[in-house]
């Protein structure tokens, strides 16, 4: 028997069903991979070996008793440490929450537990999901499995590296401006950014409420469909989840792309995008064209403004959301001896937040303050409308759009740490998708001359995740 941790979800589920191995066997191989590689990669910040062993053994008992279980039953999963897990430390990789143990599960965790998931541990991220490199974590950066001197991407860097390093079969992440797709691209696996509202965010620490989405990383497209099926849908605890049917995503697997209209946003292949990356993506597009898809150029002229919209809107919403961290109801109280309540708040937050969080909270506070609100915040929300309208226009002509995820390859650890603006540019092609609230699937598109992964994204209209899966699956198999 080979190493079980290298299996995909569907392979592992079949093996369990056919009793070729047990859930405990599967888990042991994953734990061995963590033991072996986590020291250098820093993908997991908490490993719940005891809890995972218990649930895996319970699944094995059910299988032995002849119960028919859901496909995700007994499959080891890693969870971004921004998502609350009852009884298991959830830190958001921030000093202010370093010892926080949530008394409840996020809805996505509840849903997966109902399918007998095996939660193996919590994965590293940029503090409160703010960053594109996972370097802004109080646990130190996650390293790229392809080159340890380089970043894994962010903010869900731990979740991406964990899947690539076969530490588990799949992981959960969040994507507010590219935080699933960028690390999926940098680590060479599959990452699903869902339509805004498709997956509940209840119990997931809020960063920017009109942008945040919860999604997942897997080793192939079929598994993307399986996990999406399990977590999508309406939730009473998150009223931004519409009461809208969740289609059978497996139906989009193994389909042809003949006659499908595929748009290439010209801004996604132009200035600032490395030639080698654009060419790798075009090679994949050629496969679709050869298979009968109709490829055409589309125009998203306001793409270049998306980063600016993001860095007004996100800090604004974040500064309001992170007001709740005051060191009183949860989180670290100040180490110093504050003289009054005002001093208590300022000390708790000054000590408890890292640099990137302080920067973003201050930018948000500034752009929302009297006299600047109209010039910054209102203006940004108007430009966001312009971006949304351009997506709507493009989707009148095409079924999906394809472009690179990142304009640049995985960068070196520390390269942009003192230049936040330069790092923000890595998200230039992912942010517009979040602005429009549409889904996108990041898929591998080969490697560059240094052997570093290149990723493409398949972008579909709202609630058409199925189309992303259809095209992703076709590219994987052809």
């Amino acid at each position, binding site marked *: 028997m080979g190493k079980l941790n290298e299996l995909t979800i569907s392979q592992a589920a079949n093996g369990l069903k056919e009793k070729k191995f047990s859930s405990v066997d599967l888990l042991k191989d994953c734990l061995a991979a963590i033991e072996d590689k986590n020291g250098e990669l820093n993908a997991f910040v908490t490993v719940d070996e005891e809890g995972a062993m218990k649930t895996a053994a319970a699944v094995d008992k059910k299988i032995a008793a002849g119960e028919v279980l859901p496909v995700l039953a007994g499959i080891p999963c890693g969870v971004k440490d921004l998502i609350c897990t009852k009884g298991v430390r959830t830190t958001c990789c921030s000093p202010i929450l370093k010892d926080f143990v949530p008394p*409840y599960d996020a809805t996505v965790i509840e849903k997966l537990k109902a399918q007998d998931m095996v939660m193996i541990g919590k994965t590293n991220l940029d503090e409160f999901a703010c960053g594109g490199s996972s370097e802004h974590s109080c646990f130190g950066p996650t390293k790229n499995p392809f080159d340890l001197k380089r970043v894994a991407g962010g903010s869900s860097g731990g979740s991406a590296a964990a899947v690539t390093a076969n530490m588990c079969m799949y992981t959960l992440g969040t994507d507010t401006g590219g935080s699933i797709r960028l690390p999926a691209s940098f680590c060479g696996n599959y990452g699903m950014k869902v339509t805004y509202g498709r997956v509940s965010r209840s119990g997931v620490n809020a960063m920017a409420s*009109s942008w945040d989405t919860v999604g997942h990383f897997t080793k192939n497209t079929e598994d993307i469909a399986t996990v999406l099926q399990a977590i999508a849908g309406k939730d009473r605890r998150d009223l*931004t989840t519409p009461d809208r049917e969740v289609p059978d995503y497996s139906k989009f697997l193994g389909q042809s792309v003949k006659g499908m209209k595929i748009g290439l946003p010209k801004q996604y292949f132009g200035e600032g995008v490395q030639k080698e990356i654009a060419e790798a993506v075009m090679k994949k597009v050629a496969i679709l064209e050869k298979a009968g898809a109709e490829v055409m150029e589309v125009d998203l002229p306001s793409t270049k403004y998306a980063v600016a919209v993001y860095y007004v809107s996100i800090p604004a919403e974040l500064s309001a959301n992170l007001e709740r961290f005051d060191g009183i109801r949860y989180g670290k109280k100040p180490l110093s001896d504050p003289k009054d309540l005002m001093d208590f708040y300022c000390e708790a937050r000054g000590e408890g937040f890292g640099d990137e969080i302080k*920067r973003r909270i201050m930018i948000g506070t500034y752009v929302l303050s009297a006299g600047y609100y109209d010039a910054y915040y209102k*203006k940004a929300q108007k430009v966001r409308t312009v971006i949304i309208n351009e997506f709507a226009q493009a989707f009148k002509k095409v079924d999906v759009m394809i472009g690179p995820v990142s304009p640049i390859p995985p960068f070196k650890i520390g390269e942009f740490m003192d230049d936040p603006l330069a790092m923000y540019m890595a998200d230039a092609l992912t942010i517009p998708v979040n602005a429009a609230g549409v889904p996108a699937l990041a898929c591998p598109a080969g490697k560059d001359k240094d052997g570093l992964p290149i990723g493409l994204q398949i972008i579909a209209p709202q609630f058409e995740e199925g189309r992303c899966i259809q095209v992703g699956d076709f590219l994987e198999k052809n």
Partner: protein
Amino acid sequence: MLNDDQVRHVAKLARIKLTDEEVKKFGKQLSSVLDYVNILAEVDTKDVAETSQVTGLKNVMDKDEVIKSQSTKSELLKCSELPVDSGQVRVIRVVK
């Protein structure tokens, strides 16, 4: 360019204590971000409405009924590092 006093003022509004070095460092970094976002002025947004919701939901109502919470009051109180008194978290005295 934001000056030191402006940075301190914003930090105070945001309830974040900064060291003098942080004031200098963030002043520069914040200014570069604020300068950059000025490119939004190039976009013609006359008669364009601001985005507030992207999937078209409006006035979502939930049933008015009591549902069971996953966590108990004592579990929630345990999340605080401060002393708990009569089922409440004790904070620094506000009224003197």
